[in-house]
């Protein structure tokens, strides 16, 4: 969009056309006390070179994962990003983040989305994946609405092991249709099966678990699937595809819908977004699925081609009865993931999982050697774990920042019950030196 300024004469002309005498006249409805009565307090205008220097100085105050050893996770992970990704996505043919209108004219874009869908469906162990939606949290929220539409039931049972931020997004989404949310408590780090069974009723539309869960622990997906299905509810599993090169796909363990955050697949953390919402379902649920879907077909000459398919689910055709308001996808982030998976391949992706887990377990071992430091849960964990520390986690974090270590995410803000806990994530990027430095700094910080 171009910025076109208007002259005072043009402004006068426009105001005359609507019968207003000044721009101030247009604002009279806003109470005076809510309006700024003085000019904005802005510094003087800077020359371009000066401005760039100024912004660079400000950006330098950030503690980024390039300068710090990042042990932060909780939904966004510092996995390595192979350099070809940035080169390829920067091509003009790709570097627009929007789903194309008149989509069939953009065969290259559709092809890349089709490949993305195929990869995600395979990783999740499902039949179909859509072209992606905004992020893991919105994917989950859409999945809960889908479970409600499919089962005609109005209660969701969400495990306490699901990322609390995702849960908040679900709460926002389901307020309109008036769905109720119940919590399934954790046992020693994973959803307690007996408590879950008691939470379920003939009104339960879906059970939601995360795998590995928010605290890093590995849920017993198969057992939970059986419990959910016995009650006639669907099982929604939140999972990150980057982990599914190693972990058994949730689809193979009985999940009906698999959603999750695809950021780990070559998408930079970027201070929290844009992210990549993965969404995959079983074949029988495909007509209830939200979002765009690319299909392969043949043209009149019998040649392979790609089209947007099952669009009758979508808003521009089905209007208010559409499966969702989502009529777009995060095409550029999906492309990053597609290139990432292509570069790593089956063995590479598995290696990422193996290295992350091995290093996470080494880190847990070293960190819990520090007196007073222990693992909060006994359940098996993957690349992330919950550490109980004998001093305020916030102070520990502050202290370790001095050593260029981002120690973890304090859990107090999520749940007071975990106010002495730190959530620590370890990816394949972390080195033995960094982990050993963390252990040494932690020992000094809590001594």
């Amino acid at each position, binding site marked *: 969009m171009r910025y076109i300024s208007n002259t005072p004469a043009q402004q006068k002309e426009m105001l005359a056309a609507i019968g207003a005498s000044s721009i101030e006249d247009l604002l009279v409805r806003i109470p005076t006390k809510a309006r700024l009565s003085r000019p904005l307090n802005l510094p003087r205008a800077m020359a371009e070179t000066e401005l760039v220097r100024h912004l660079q100085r400000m950006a330098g105050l950030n503690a980024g994962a390039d300068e710090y050893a990042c042990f932060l996770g909780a939904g966004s992970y510092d996995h390595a990003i192979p350099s070809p990704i940035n080169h390829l996505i920067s091509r003009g043919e790709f570097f627009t983040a929007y789903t194309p209108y008149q989509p069939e004219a953009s065969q290259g874009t559709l092809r890349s989305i089709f490949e993305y869908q195929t990869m995600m469906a395979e990783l999740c162990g499902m039949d179909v994946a859509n072209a992606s939606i905004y992020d893991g949290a919105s994917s989950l929220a859409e999945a809960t609405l889908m479970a409600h539409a499919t089962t*005609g039931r109005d209660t969701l049972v969400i495990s306490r092991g699901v990322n609390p931020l995702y849960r908040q997004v679900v709460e926002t989404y389901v307020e309109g249709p008036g769905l109720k949310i119940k919590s399934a408590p954790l046992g020693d780090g994973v959803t307690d099966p007996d408590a879950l069974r008691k939470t379920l009723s003939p009104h339960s539309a879906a059970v939601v678990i995360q795998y590995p869960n928010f605290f890093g622990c590995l849920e017993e997906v198969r057992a939970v699937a059986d419990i959910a299905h016995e009650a006639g509810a669907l099982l929604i599993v939140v999972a990150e595809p980057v982990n599914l090169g190693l972990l058994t796909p949730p689809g193979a363990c009985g999940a009906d819908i698999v959603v999750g955050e695809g950021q780990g697949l070559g998408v930079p953390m970027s201070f929290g977004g844009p992210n990549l919402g993965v969404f995959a379902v079983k074949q029988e649920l495909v*007509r209830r699925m939200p979002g765009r879907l690319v299909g392969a077909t043949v043209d009149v000459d019998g040649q392979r081609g790609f089209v947007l398919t099952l669009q*009758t689910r979508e808003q521009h*055709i*089905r209007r208010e*009865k559409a499966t969702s308001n989502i009529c777009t996808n995060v095409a550029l982030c999906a492309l990053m993931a597609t290139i990432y998976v292509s570069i790593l391949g089956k063995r590479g992706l598995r290696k990422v999982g193996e290295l992350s887990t091995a290093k996470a377990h080494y880190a847990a071992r070293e960190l819990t050697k520090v007196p007073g430091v222990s693992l909060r849960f006994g359940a098996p964990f993957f690349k992330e774990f919950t550490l109980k520390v004998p001093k305020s986690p916030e102070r520990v974090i502050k202290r370790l920042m001095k050593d260029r270590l981002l120690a973890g995410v304090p859990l107090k803000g999520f749940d007071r019950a975990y106010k002495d806990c730190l959530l620590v994530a370890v990816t394949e990027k972390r080195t033995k030196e960094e982990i050993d430095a963390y252990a040494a700094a932690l020992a000094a910080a809590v001594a």
Partner: protein
Amino acid sequence: MANVPAELKYTREHEWAKVDGDRARIGITAFAQEQLGDVVFVELPKVGAKVTAMKTFGVVESVKAVSDLFAPVSGEVVEVNDALPKSPELVNTDPYGKGWMLVIRMANPKDVDGLLSAADYQKLTADGAH
């Protein structure tokens, strides 16, 4: 001219009803399926669901459009055509037979009085309504 069996009752929205005691078997007319073109998907309520006369009870999707289905009468769904999810084309090939959709146990059999006769429906479609 599309086939309009004399023994059936019709809605202005192109559904038919075959009344038998307190039960009504329903579907869409030959005229409706011709207008829609190839039907690719039919979404129906489950057995036990309640439907209300002239309110939507489902959706029929063709290669051309998605259309709401309107219940000719109020009542409870007692049978659903299980063949339609796998073979939606039955709506095209046999709209009054194998392409039936629901059997409704009527809450108020008087609903039938409000429906169109075959002659009236034929007149409606001849006038080009759709």
